[in-house]
């Protein structure tokens, strides 16, 4: 007798996991343009459509700008829509990103986090999506291929919720997740259909009640539309948490909503992570715990909306907070740090803070380096003379 139902697990890459998540979500329209390291996702999807595994209008477009523009057209009249991009492609879409969020079109897009030129680089960091934090999209970052698949399904449910109606970007680290193979459980279509009802829009294309879509606004009304967008983003926090709870009950995997706290309750030093680096930090933190160091991890899942409440609470219970940024806003700080620091300052707490800039253009962040970060945080509890922003693992001497 089988003690447990055999789970449908297959050995696939992060890109392929996304493709399966999209297939199970049954989009009406996929508009896609290939770019490394996202290409495999749209290739797999085109194969699925070709083989009849999914019924979808698969549009071959001539650029990323067109991919998102076509997605907007479809989404505006009620089609569930998917597109995918990365790096330069995401930036080429920048105009359309604001357009889509302002139009309140619940498009779901996968972004493979990749560095930005120049110097030209196809390898990973998070400067692409973080530089577009203000574009009005919900941004979630995943840690592994399973979470990537699951978040595509959750993303439609969140984005299409009547209180939200905001596009959502599912970010996964280029190569580290997109091209690494893992065992991934493929949920049953029937259960996904139960979890994810069809998208209903009041703006469906229809002769009886025609709509005027995407109109302009005068100064008299523009602020109100932007207020609405901000409110929807804030309201999405509740939807995100409820969706994750419902998903967990149905599929057995919980992702803890806005953030995942790992060993934070009695921690002295906590590293804040975003994306796949969390996996490596988990290993180091457990090793340090075994040696008696009180360390923890705050895995940020959502950068927009931002987990302000959780970070304020974290600030009240720990002595030092380090933020790993695969990003730098030149002339200031890593963007994750700026956001975390803003929340900490509102908590009115005094913690030692450090911003570790690393992993740029695909450079690995090693376990030894993470241990060093933790040691700095543990030692730095009472010093205030250190530089807050630290380029980690520069391979040469500098003039500083």
């Amino acid at each position, binding site marked *: 007798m089988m003690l447990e139902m055999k789970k449908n697990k297959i050995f696939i890459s992060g890109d392929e996991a996304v493709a399966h998540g999209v297939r199970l979500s049954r989009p009406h329209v996929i508009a896609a343009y290939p770019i490394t390291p996202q290409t495999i996702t749209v290739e797999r999807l085109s194969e699925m459509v070709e083989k009849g595994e999914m019924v979808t209008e698969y549009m071959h477009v001539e650029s990323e700008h067109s991919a998102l523009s076509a997605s907007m057209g479809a989404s505006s009249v009620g089609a569930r829509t998917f597109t995918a991009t990365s790096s330069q492609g995401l930036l080429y879409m920048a105009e359309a990103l604001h357009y889509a969020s302002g139009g309140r079109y619940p498009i779901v897009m996968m972004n493979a986090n990749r560095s930005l030129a120049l110097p030209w680089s196809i390898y990973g960091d998070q400067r692409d999506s973080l530089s577009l934090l203000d574009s009005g999209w919900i941004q979630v970052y995943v840690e592994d291929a399973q979470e990537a698949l699951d978040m595509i399904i959750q993303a439609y449910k969140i984005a299409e919720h009547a209180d939200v109606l905001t596009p959502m970007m599912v970010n996964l680290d280029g190569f580290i997740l997109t091209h690494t193979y893992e065992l991934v459980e493929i949920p049953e279509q029937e259960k996904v259909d139960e979890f994810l009802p069809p998208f209903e829009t009041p703006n469906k294309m229809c002769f009886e009640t025609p*709509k005027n879509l995407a*109109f302009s606004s005068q100064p008299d009304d523009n602020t*109100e*539309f932007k207020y*609405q967008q901000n409110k929807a983003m804030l309201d999405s926090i509740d939807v995100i948490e409820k969706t994750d709870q419902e998903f967990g009950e149905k599929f057995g995997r919980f992702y803890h909503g806005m953030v995942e706290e790992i060993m934070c309750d009695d921690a002295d030093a906590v590293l804040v992570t975003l994306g796949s680096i969390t996996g490596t930090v988990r290993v180091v933190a457990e090793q340090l715990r075994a040696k008696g160091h009180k360390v923890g991890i705050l895995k940020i899942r959502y950068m927009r909306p931002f987990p302000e409440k959780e970070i304020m609470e974290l600030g009240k219970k720990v002595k030092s907070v380090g933020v790993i940024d695969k990003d730098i806003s030149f002339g200031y700080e890593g963007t994750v740090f700026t956001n975390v620091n803003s929340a900490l300052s509102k908590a009115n707490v005094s913690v030692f803070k450090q911003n570790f800039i690393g992993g740029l253009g695909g450079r690995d962040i090693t376990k030894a380096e993470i241990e060093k970060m933790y040691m700095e945080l543990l030692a730095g509890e009472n010093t205030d003379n250190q530089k807050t922003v630290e380029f980690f693992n520069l391979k040469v001497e500098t003039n500083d």
Partner: protein
Amino acid sequence: MKKPTKRDFKRPTHIDDYPVGPQYEAGFLAEINAGWRTYKPVIDHDKCIHCLICYMVCPDGTIMKNDGKIAVDYDYCKGCGVCANECPKNAITMVKEDL
């Protein structure tokens, strides 16, 4: 020839009065819009054969039938003159407005 008419527009007083995003019922005319016209089309009903070419070419949808006669909605006509130019019977004349 169902055409939208001007309706009273009440400014929103609560945020919930706004639509979700910039989309709304089509053809909601909140004001008239013909202020910059310098010439207006005038139809000679003796020449008009009701071919409706003017109706087809009007870029603003201002041509209609009134009591069986072709008429222009001067509240929205911008005076572009396309109807007069295209009329096969030269039944439409552009007449200078008294400005």
